């Protein structure tokens, strides 16, 4: 992807946007877990040697398994290397979208990370340019009495940002 970009902005700055690409650090938590042998592919961090910065992570729902840093910088990804953005873990992962940094979105544009359709149960799914069609700027615009826990997200079917209350399919 590498920043397909948008047509520029000029609107107010969202609270969260990516002015520049900052590499991730090379550190990971050494927090230890207590795997259930019946549902574990690893028992200790030392069991995770098939990639960079392997850690044995998990819980009773997901099982215990190794996670690795997929990247340290955008250059290793099609789009953005999102630091500590791994699913229920702290590993770096590549995520998509249509921009890497604000400059990809045109003059005065902003490139922001968005949650996906599982909302707060997951982390950011990608970075997308803010558009003139957006109906929200920050999560606070969407966290209302009618829609508690709402958040401002990229709407792939609409092609702009808007409020969402989605927390996985089926609501």
């Amino acid at each position, binding site marked *: 992807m590498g920043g397909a970009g948008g047509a520029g902005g000029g609107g107010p700055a969202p609270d969260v946007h990516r002015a520049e690409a900052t590499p991730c650090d090379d550190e990971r938590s050494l927090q230890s877990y207590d795997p259930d042998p019946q549902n574990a592919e690893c028992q200790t961090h030392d069991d995770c040697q098939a990639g960079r910065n392997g850690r044995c992570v998990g819980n009773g729902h997901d*099982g215990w398994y190794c996670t690795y840093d997929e990247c340290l910088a955008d250059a290793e990804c099609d789009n953005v290397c999102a630091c500590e953005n791994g699913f*229920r873990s702290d590993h770096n992962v590549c995520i*998509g979208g249509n921009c890497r940094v604000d400059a990809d979105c045109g003059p005065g544009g902003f490139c922001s990370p968005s949650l*996906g359709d599982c909302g707060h149960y997951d982390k950011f799914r990608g970075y997308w340019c803010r558009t003139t069609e957006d109906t929200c700027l920050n999560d606070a615009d969407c966290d209302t009495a009618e829609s508690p*826990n709402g958040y401002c997200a990229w709407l792939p*079917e609409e092609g702009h940002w808007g409020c969402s209350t989605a927390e996985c*399919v*089926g609501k």
Partner: protein
Amino acid sequence: MRRQVALALALAGCAPPAGDDPLAVGRRYVADPAVGRAALEASIVDSTNDYSRLRLESYDAWATLPEPARRVAWVTPGQAPSDWFTLPADLPADPDAVRDQGELAFRAWPVQVDSALEAALDDPATAAAAGLPTDAAGRLPLIWVQGPTGPLLAYTCATCHRLDGAATFDERALHTGRPSQGAGRLDVTADGLDNPTTITDLRPVRRQTHLHRAATLHNSLLGLAVRIETLLITSAREQHRPPRAIAFALAWYLWTLADAQPPVPGGPGADVFARTCGGCHAGPDLAGPPVPLDALAPLSPAARAIGASPDRGTGTWRVPSLRGVGTRRPLLASGEVPDLDALLDPTRGGPHPFGQMLAADDRATLLAWLRRL
């Protein structure tokens, strides 16, 4: 078929009007948003929970959302989307045609776009781990939908709700590539609580007195249609809405699934059931009115966590219909028990202890009977 349809409506308290048009109620719903509004208000048990408040406050505004034509294509691993088609948006005249339209929408209506589904398309092992089998035509239970810049992958009803009774979808496996202990469960409530519920077996939905485990809604054909309509709207992040004909066709399709279920057998198993389970699971539907959550709490912490959610809670818990329980899995509120054998295992302990203390021969008789449902 007409007699079956009339019977279905009568069972649901929706007797067809004079003139023998079993779909008359659906036609009124499709033609007039006020009919949907009235059905919504009639279905809500507790207007103070978040689920109900959102719908009561937003339903009229949602009527003005756009109804874009949905261009979709089946999802076959290794193949680019092709043979795009548009889902019909009108209600057919014939009940069987409505059922067919509902079945198509069940498999093809793009309920919610989610880029995480690409993992299932890219890797057969991940699709298997996520409980997404391909059908005889090699298709995954997903759908392509045309987005503003290209095809997008979306859930359908069939992604999660298999009609063989087995709930296998494992959302976590899409992210990890491996099966988790969360298979067959989803946390669909935006309440900040970790309270996943077992994915519902929809085959006996007509037989339930209420919709949702927390008994959020009184059940009826129109109540189900409105429940589906609002689900499709919230899943579309309130940006667009389905035609009411789609929502009603889906409800009608689900309503007719119970027609294929065999009659409740008699015999010694029925006697054991009546004295062991019949206090709650009663009548020909083997269901019953909701029970107070406080009475249930000591028996099932998971049910308590779901039923007490500010999102859907009503202070009560639905007594599910046991029609089809022989092939249903996993069981109980949050999939705590994998199947019937485990449910009645006297060594199991845990929630819902009913039947565990039966003598071995009575237990075997009951199990054999339940498997025939």
